[in-house]
């Protein structure tokens, strides 16, 4: 039982890492980023390539840094250009980017599934209540909690955090206070994409790598974002943990409905509160 709860937290943590990037980008650019899953995938492949040379932690670093740069480029080249367009139009662009990224990765790394090694430091299992539990999974929990805490602290207590929250509500008004929103969004989209890279690497050893791996987790992340209340970071964290648990206990107790449970939960929550857990945005 306890192990199952722990497993739920692992999956929830992973979803959070991905969802929080979506929230960041949605907040500032109002972009529903369908390419996020494929950025996660690219991050995983980059990390994999370095890790395969024997530098696991180097892979992590390379992936995060490279994805941050990719994020900045994406913001400057695409999101900034489209900032005045209908949000639905930008969805189209991100979908196009998704297709391009998947094909590119296929061309470079091939279609075959790849397995990402676990770093030596975190290999093996520990016994939790006489049942072996992979150390690596505890690491996943640690990473997501660390990201959650530092991100909320950053957003809540720093000036940049205040500006980001402000710009996420109304970019025009925020700019009129003398804040360069384009630069801010470079940081934010870069950060969000870097987090996608981070989650790609962190998820790598749990999942197999394939050019479409992002698609299998993107929808769960969107559910997290929506249940959390669009644009809410704390809400996303709570929702991610909830979905993680639902996923686990659904698999155990309601296997025939396990795939629709997250959807049902979302429907129920939205009907109860149309703006999600923490939603006040209009």
């Amino acid at each position, binding site marked *: 039982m306890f*192990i*199952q709860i722990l*497993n739920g937290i*692992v*999956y929830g943590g*992973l979803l959070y890492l991905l969802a929080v990037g979506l929230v960041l980008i949605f907040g500032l650019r109002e972009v529903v980023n369908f390419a996020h899953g494929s950025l996660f995938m690219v991050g995983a492949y980059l990390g994999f390539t370095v890790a395969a040379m024997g530098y696991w932690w180097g892979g992590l670093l390379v992936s995060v840094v490279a994805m941050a740069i990719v994020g900045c480029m994406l913001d400057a080249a695409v999101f900034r250009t489209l900032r005045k367009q209908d949000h639905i139009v930008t969805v189209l662009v991100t979908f196009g980017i998704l297709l391009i990224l*998947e*094909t590119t990765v*296929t061309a470079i790394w*091939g*279609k*075959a*599934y*790849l*397995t990402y090694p*676990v770093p030596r430091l975190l290999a093996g*299992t520990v016994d939790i209540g006489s*049942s*072996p*539990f*992979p150390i*690596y*999974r505890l690491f996943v929990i640690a990473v997501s909690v660390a990201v959650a805490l530092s991100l909320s602290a950053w957003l809540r207590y720093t000036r940049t955090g205040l500006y980001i929250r402000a710009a996420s509500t109304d970019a025009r008004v925020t700019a009129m206070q003398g804040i360069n929103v384009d630069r801010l969004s470079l940081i934010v989209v870069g950060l969000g994409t870097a987090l996608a890279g981070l989650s790609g690497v962190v*998820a790598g*050893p*749990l*999942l*197999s790598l*394939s*050019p*479409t*791996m992002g698609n*299998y*987790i993107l929808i*769960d992340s969107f559910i997290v974002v929506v249940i959390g209340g669009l644009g809410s970071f704390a809400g996303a964290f709570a929702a991610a943990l909830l979905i993680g648990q639902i*996923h*686990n*206990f659904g*698999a*155990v107790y309601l*296997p025939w409905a*396990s*795939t629709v449970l997250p959807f049902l939960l979302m429907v129920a929550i939205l009907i109860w509160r149309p703006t999600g857990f923490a939603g006040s945005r209009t």
Partner: protein
Amino acid sequence: DPLRIGVPTDLSGTYATLGEEVMRAVHFAVDEANANGGVAGHKVEIKSYDTEAKPDLARRQSEKLVSEGYPILTGLIASGEGLAIAPLMERWGSIYVSTINKADELTGANCVPGVFRVNTQSAMDAATVKPWLAQRKEKKWAIVAADIAWGRGSGKLFAEAVKSVGGTVTAELYTPANINDFAPYIEQVKKSGAEGVWVVLAGRDAVNFAQQSKQFGLTDAITVAGVSFTTDGTVKTLGAAAKGIYGIINYSSTLDTPENKAFVKAWVAKYKSPPTNFEGETYMGMQVIYQAVQAANSVKPADVAKAMPGHTFDTIMGKLVMRAEDHQLLKPNYFGVVEDVDGTLRPVIKTTVSAKDVAPPVTCKMASK
């Protein structure tokens, strides 16, 4: 006039890796035939379109191939794709040689004159399990299977087999397709106290399950066996995590027949690594097409179709008969384990079950026109 074969297959969907194997085997067979002056004097030409493993797209792309003059089709992967185009063969005046679809219906309830199957259908896999199970000492088995028709069917047959040899099934878990985290299922297998786990998963699910059970120490603790689980592709991906996993093998490059040895040798010369199970099966499909063309001495699909039923084909698995009643090629099936062969891990055949013993019952009522 050339022999034109259309290859609608999945190049970008869920089974894109298989599609890649399909294409490699088709190209190999075509090059080989053309280097030898073609098939009965006919040069071989192929054309391929991506079906994304979606039935409606499979239909559209197949129709395009047929209309562009490639009326002999092969290479579809998902059973749904094969089932979707089967009824259209007559209208299009084309034939379909199935090499990967596993659904029994294709040559059973839904059989049609224009469809032939070269590969192993699910019922044949099921018949392979019992002889193997009888010789094992594990008596408590858990089942982890994909929650689709194939997984459910296989799981059920395995459970029956376990009971028939006096064992018990401790847990029967059906997993949705393409989930990311198998931890809850692994945990349940562990808790059930099973001595072995029977896995009916393919592709990404197979890889994820194997990798995660290794991390949880499951693979080392109990016997792991499965169907389609130990494909060459999966084993290659998993590396060391695959070692010691048992499984049904439909084709293996380690198969010890002279025809196969020649084929593997030529293959390795070209691609540097031995052919995978899907590559072997696809190649066999091409062999069957070629020989039917030779027998018919025509590339017209109608003539080729006439030459197929009851014909004996000379394949890499030996001389095999295309059963006239349902167009299923009667082939042997194998059981093996992943072992180290010349430094690489590969599924190695341990038990061979003869074509006669795995032959499925005929359920097809072919409306012969």
